[in-house]
């Protein structure tokens, strides 16, 4: 087992302060997305029944599967560096970047189809306003995650991570998985119900 080094930043609880900070941040994100979802549910309740009929469920199901795949590649990247495998770390982070970019690309295609093809716009209806706000915020989080992932790849190429020091990969993983969890909830609430 790897021994902790002096570079670890422990709190008085013995927990790593960086990881603790990320969990506190994620707790605030829970409140942010819950507020957005509550707002969306309000708008949906005031919209005609079947307002989501314009949404493409099969395409979004594929996108959900892609995001789940990216969660697997992130956790495999962490597992690789825990074993000291630099090559696998880089490979899985690259796969995460590619999968995340694909998710975002499909979301852009979906938006384009809805706005241009169906005339379904944020200003067109309450449901549209709620849909674009919630999924847009989520997409923005994916975008931030992609920038973070690209930065981690550069760090990994430079050999900055080891079996003993990989907390930055773990913290990124927490963020990315959280984004996945949010999408799991959104997929059900917005597309399937």
């Amino acid at each position, binding site marked *: 087992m790897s021994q902790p080094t002096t570079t670890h930043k422990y709190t008085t609880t013995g927990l790593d302060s960086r*990881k603790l900070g990320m969990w506190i941040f994620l707790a605030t994100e829970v409140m942010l997305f819950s507020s957005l979802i509550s707002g969306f549910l309000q708008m949906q309740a005031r919209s005609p029944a079947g307002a989501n009929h314009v949404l493409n469920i099969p395409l979004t199901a594929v996108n959900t599967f892609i995001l789940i795949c990216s969660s697997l590649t992130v956790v495999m990247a962490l597992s690789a560096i825990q074993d000291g495998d630099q090559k696998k770390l880089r490979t899985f982070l690259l796969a995460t970047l590619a999968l995340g970019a694909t998710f975002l690309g499909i979301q852009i295609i979906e938006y384009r189809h809805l706005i241009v093809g169906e005339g379904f716009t944020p200003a067109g209806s309450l449901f549209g306003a709620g849909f674009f706000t919630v999924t847009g915020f989520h997409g923005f989080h994916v975008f931030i995650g992609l920038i973070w992932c690209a930065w981690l790849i550069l760090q990994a190429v430079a050999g900055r991570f080891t079996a003993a020091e990989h907390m930055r990969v773990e913290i990124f993983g927490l963020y990315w998985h959280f984004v996945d969890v949010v999408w799991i909830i959104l997929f059900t609430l917005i597309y399937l119900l």
Partner: protein
Amino acid sequence: MKHVDPNQDVKQRSHRKPNYLLVFVFLAAVTALEVAITYIPGVPLAPVLVALSLAKASAVLLYFMHLRFDHWWYAVIFLVPFVLVIPLVLVVRV
């Protein structure tokens, strides 16, 4: 002053790794099930789909985010907002 083990977090992280591939298969299978259910008439969609999505979210939190194996403080920090959030969502739905 209370003694704190500086290795505590490292010890928490040295747990045996879960079968990530199995968790992934579970998530993919439940997603396929969710989509399939929407095409079956007569199924009470709301409770079934919410339960399935909560099962998926829990699997990610417990195994991919390691809440099952990490220090319980992380779970407490993450769960505290739900005390506020659940009433908020329920009030809005009424």
